[in-house]
């Protein structure tokens, strides 16, 4: 045993000595046991927030956008801020599942399911806002280019808002497919251990008759790889297109070529922060410390540190270009951000997004779960304010000083924001109860990773290969595949 050398870099992805069956047991446990008090309290809280938001949205749709604090100068504020915020949150999920998959980052396996779920729910939250921000949301279907009897009158394919429609719906669809395909084998596991008939029936329908056939696994793996390949440029494109809502406009502070990369990085930044927030809660609540280890958190903290620094670079680049361009409107907009009536929002953004992540240079902080939790909350707040700063401070003082105006949100808008969090957590909590939160198949496939073999008879790898054909190749493969 002592001659077996395992690299220090290859720390086990799953801590604790768990067998395959134990993985299934532990992962399916939250589905099968009765919900605890914590869950019910959290669910009640989320549902209340959702109710508040639903009431606010109902009131707004029944009365008019005037129930918000917008005016003729500031035509978007909380609505689009929330939209971009949630889309951003939705990026980490796909990033973790697709990009890290393509990069063969095996540590993703224990967090990708919940990250993907988070993506789906965040995109749902995001999609609510373009819908309810419309003056006549009941006519939202007019943004679809369907054949009609108006001439036919199509849609305007030049509008970034229409690109959004396509990007968000594509992103949602592909993310959902990706997530669901990942779920199918695990649903089969849940099905095959289900005791009650109803459970079995539901999981039977949802698992598409999955039986673990290796022929299907083979295609499945190819398809999964393809989805990852499709989702990776997609995730970049979505936030690029969202950024084009602003970048293709003529408003100083919006009309910026740096926006696409800036938005994508910001989305990764905020998305990872939100994943971290959620996972820290989840690993505690459902006892997943074995699967979601401090190593996972540290890895994510590193991503947050890098993206946070890029975001900080983007902020300073904006200022530099505003000065360097010599454009008086552009220059004013950025000075106004830092010193104008919305300076408070700007400095919240800078301190949360640029300063706090720098603490992650310290390993102690990176490995301190409470510190990470607090930091991730700060980043969430900061990234919300980043979108608020971009949307509102650019609009409130643009070209003609005669139109300059201030913006104050109303209670309805705040309630809508609260409601979107309610929707998100309601969906997430239901997900925790109804679906396997860990990608069983994937965790099982890495459960031996960085760990000594479970079976004593497999201990000796130095035995001649002839005696056990294939053995040495397998073991070798496993060790090299992850280099």
């Amino acid at each position: 045993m002592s001659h077996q050398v395992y690299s220090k870099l290859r720390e086990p992805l799953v801590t604790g000595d768990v067998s395959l069956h134990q993985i299934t047991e532990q992962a399916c446990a939250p589905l099968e046991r009765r919900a605890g008090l914590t869950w019910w309290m959290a669910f009640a809280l989320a549902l209340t927030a959702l109710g508040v938001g639903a009431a606010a949205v109902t009131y707004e749709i029944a009365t008019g956008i005037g129930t918000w604090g917008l005016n003729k100068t500031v035509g978007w504020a909380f609505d689009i801020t929330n939209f971009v915020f949630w889309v951003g949150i939705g990026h980490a999920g796909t990033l973790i599942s697709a990009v890290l998959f393509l990069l063969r980052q095996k540590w993703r396996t224990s967090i990708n399911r919940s990250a993907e779920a988070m993506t789906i729910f965040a995109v749902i939250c995001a999609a609510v806002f373009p819908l309810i921000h419309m003056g006549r949301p009941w006519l939202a279907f007019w943004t679809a280019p369907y054949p009609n009897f108006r001439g036919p009158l199509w849609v305007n394919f030049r509008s970034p808002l229409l690109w959004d429609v396509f990007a968000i719906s594509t992103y949602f669809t592909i993310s959902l497919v990706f997530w669901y395909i990942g779920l199918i084998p695990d649903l089969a596991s849940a099905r095959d251990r289900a005791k009650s008939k109803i459970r079995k029936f539901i999981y039977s329908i949802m698992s598409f008759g999955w039986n673990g056939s290796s022929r299907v696994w083979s295609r499945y793996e190819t398809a999964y790889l393809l989805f990852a390949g499709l989702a990776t440029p997609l995730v970049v494109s979505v936030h690029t297109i969202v950024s084009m809502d602003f970048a293709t406009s003529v408003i100083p502070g919006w009309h910026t070529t740096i926006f696409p990369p800036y938005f994508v990085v910001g989305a990764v930044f905020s998305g990872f922060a939100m994943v971290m927030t959620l996972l820290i809660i989840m690993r505690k609540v459902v006892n997943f410390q074995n699967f979601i280890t401090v190593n996972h958190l540290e890895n994510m903290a590193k991503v947050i540190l890098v993206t946070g620094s890029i975001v900080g670079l983007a902020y300073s680049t904006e200022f530099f270009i505003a000065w360097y361009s010599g454009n008086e409107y552009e220059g004013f907009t950025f000075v106004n951000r830092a010193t104008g009536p919305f300076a408070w929002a700007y400095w919240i953004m800078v301190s949360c997004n640029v300063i706090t992540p720098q603490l992650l240079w310290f390993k102690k902080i990176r490995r301190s779960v409470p510190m990470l939790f607090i930091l991730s909350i700060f980043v969430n707040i900061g990234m919300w304010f980043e979108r608020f700063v971009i949307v509102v401070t650019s609009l409130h003082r643009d070209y003609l000083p005669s139109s300059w105006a201030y913006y104050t949100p109303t209670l309805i808008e705040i309630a809508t924001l609260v409601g979107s969090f309610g929707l998100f957590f309601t969906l997430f909590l239901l997900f925790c109860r109804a679906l396997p939160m860990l990608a069983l198949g994937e965790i099982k496939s890495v459960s031996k990773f960085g760990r000594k073999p479970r079976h004593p008879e497999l201990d000796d790898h130095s035995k001649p290969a002839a005696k056990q054909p294939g053995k040495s190749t397998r073991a070798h493969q496993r060790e090299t595949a992850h280099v």
Partner: protein
Amino acid sequence: MNWRIFIIVFILTFGISLPAMMTLGDVHLIGNHQGYQPEQPLPFSHSLHAGQLALNCQYCHSAADESRHASVPSLSTCMNCHNLAKGNTEFAKANIAKIAAAYEKGEPVRWQRVHNLPDFVHFNHSAHVTKGVDCQTCHGNVPEMGVMRQNADLTMGWCVNCHRDQNTLGKGLAAPTDCDTCHH
């Protein structure tokens, strides 16, 4: 469940029904009342007046060449003829007597409007009459209609396609297809 059945159901649901519902729903939404033929308070016959008697449309609908409305004739216009023409049949006599009585009393007849456009469409009769568009082009073969009926579907596409054809098919009326032609 057989997977073939599943695929058929899937295609039926998403491939056909949804697009069909959307397109048909669209027609319904903008209020297609083609064929609308409301009952009128008096049995006035266009086929008699415009058909057999060959009265010019604008004899009664006199504002068609100067106003956005073609205008429904006033009772005095009816009485121009019906002072003398009292009717040949009992039915005609009775109804013409009703007109005369309403005229005497000064009570207008409340006709049912056949062609309705939404408020955001500013159609103008005079623009079309001035350019020599026949009434029948839109209103159909009125001289053969006993009771007036909406001939065309009056959808936007119907308007626009005719306007477009004027330009592309060389009919030469230079009909605009700008939005603000009708929507302002």
